[in-house]
């Protein structure tokens, strides 16, 4: 699988950005607040108005945002927001299928939390549940917007491990916004790096 973005530009970004990722790769994005990093990821998921073209090579066929429905595209190219949102009364009601105990344990979540009201959980717990909620749709491209911002160092590394395993097993790829230089270092072996800032265009 290959994921390509050609001259993507949305309001809030300084310059159009092009990039390409192949299966198994994790791309890191960093840069100043307000440089349009989140807008860029939302544009890739077709959640906001933008210019440029986004392509996914899936089963030998190139798909772009125009050839499949927005809903189908967003299941393949999925945006994970820094602030999670829940629209039903129980965490479990947001899942179509039950989550296995191993998966929950792998990122330090207890089974009992699964049946609780989202308001009763901490933001860190909700961030991890939101990750599982999205991964259940088996997206091909993960767009991760500071998803470990509210986690302690140990849990943060568990989440990193989960993402790395997912990307390997599903031949997927990920784009990860992170402000944490140590996190960038940890993921550096497999990662490409884009810097968003006031003057430069995206570079590797």
């Amino acid at each position, binding site marked *: 699988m290959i994921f390509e973005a050609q001259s993507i530009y949305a309001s809030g970004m300084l310059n159009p950005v092009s990039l390409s990722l192949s299966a198994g790769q994790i791309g890191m994005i960093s840069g100043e607040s307000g440089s349009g990093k989140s807008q860029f990821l939302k544009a890739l998921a077709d959640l906001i108005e933008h210019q440029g073209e986004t392509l996914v090579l899936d089963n030998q066929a190139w798909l772009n*945002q125009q050839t499949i429905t*927005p*809903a189908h595209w967003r299941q393949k190219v999925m945006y994970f*927001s820094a602030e999670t*949102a829940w*629209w039903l009364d129980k965490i479990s009601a947001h899942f179509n299928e039950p989550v296995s105990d191993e998966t929950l344990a792998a990122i330090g979540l207890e089974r009992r939390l699964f049946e609780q009201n989202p308001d009763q959980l901490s933001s860190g717990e909700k961030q991890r549940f939101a990750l599982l*909620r*999205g991964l259940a749709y088996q997206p091909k491209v993960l767009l991760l917007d500071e998803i470990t911002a509210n986690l302690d160092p140990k849990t943060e590394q568990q989440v990193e491990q989960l993402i790395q395993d997912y990307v390997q097993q599903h031949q997927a790829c990920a784009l990860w916004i992170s402000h944490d230089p140590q996190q960038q270092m940890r993921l550096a072996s497999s990662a490409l790096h884009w810097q968003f800032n006031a003057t430069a265009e995206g570079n590797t």
Partner: protein
Amino acid sequence: MIFISYWDLVALSSLVVLLGVVLWLNGFKRVPSLYWSTTRMVAQLLFMGIWLTYVFTSENLWLVALVSVIMLGAAGYEIIQRQQYRFAKWHALLIGFLSISLTSLVLLVGVLTLTIQPEPWYQPQYAIPLLGMLLGNSMTAIGLGLDTMTRNAVQMRARIEAQLALGKTAKQSLEFIKQQSLHAAMIPVINMLVAAGIISLPGMMTGQILAGIAPIEAVKYQILIMLLIVASTGFGTLIALHLAGKQLFDHRQRLRLDGLIKTK
């Protein structure tokens, strides 16, 4: 029947003047607005009385149509006036006008030609009061439903966007808000049905009984009106929410709240 003189009404209006004074002494700031609305109510009703006398005697289809269009337009306008967030002017008017006129007009013409069957079917003595009853009630329900939908869409933006990001369609992502909006619009109507005849004597029936009609005949008309009101508020709200829900998203099913203007 016993006729009321204009002097009786003038005497009764002193009640509202007195109320205004007492309210003002209690720190209520909007006494001028109370007086103004009361004056407006009297003027509007008197004008309606004179105008209807003319329309009733003429029995002209075009005149009835003209009165109906004015009433529909006013109802559509009142709907958007009550919104905290409304769509860019043109869409707002269209949503209000379409949803209220589609249901009220279809039901009115249906009940006149099939049930009551006056001669001719558009006889203003029947058509105009019936339309007025339908409009007044649908207007409130549609206004409430739309207001709940747009306000919740703004407040719960993150919950809609989270569902879109998971690959749900615009319609699915808005479903929970649509449920809340239907609830807000229909609960007052359901309460009205429950209260009818036990807690409240509906205004139309009271009017007919005062005018000397046999109570059971007045009740039959009231039941007919209630059934029409339930149908027109329900279907009208469904149409309004459907039209409004579409306006909240663009052709790529992206949530577009920039089409909403905050008014209050």
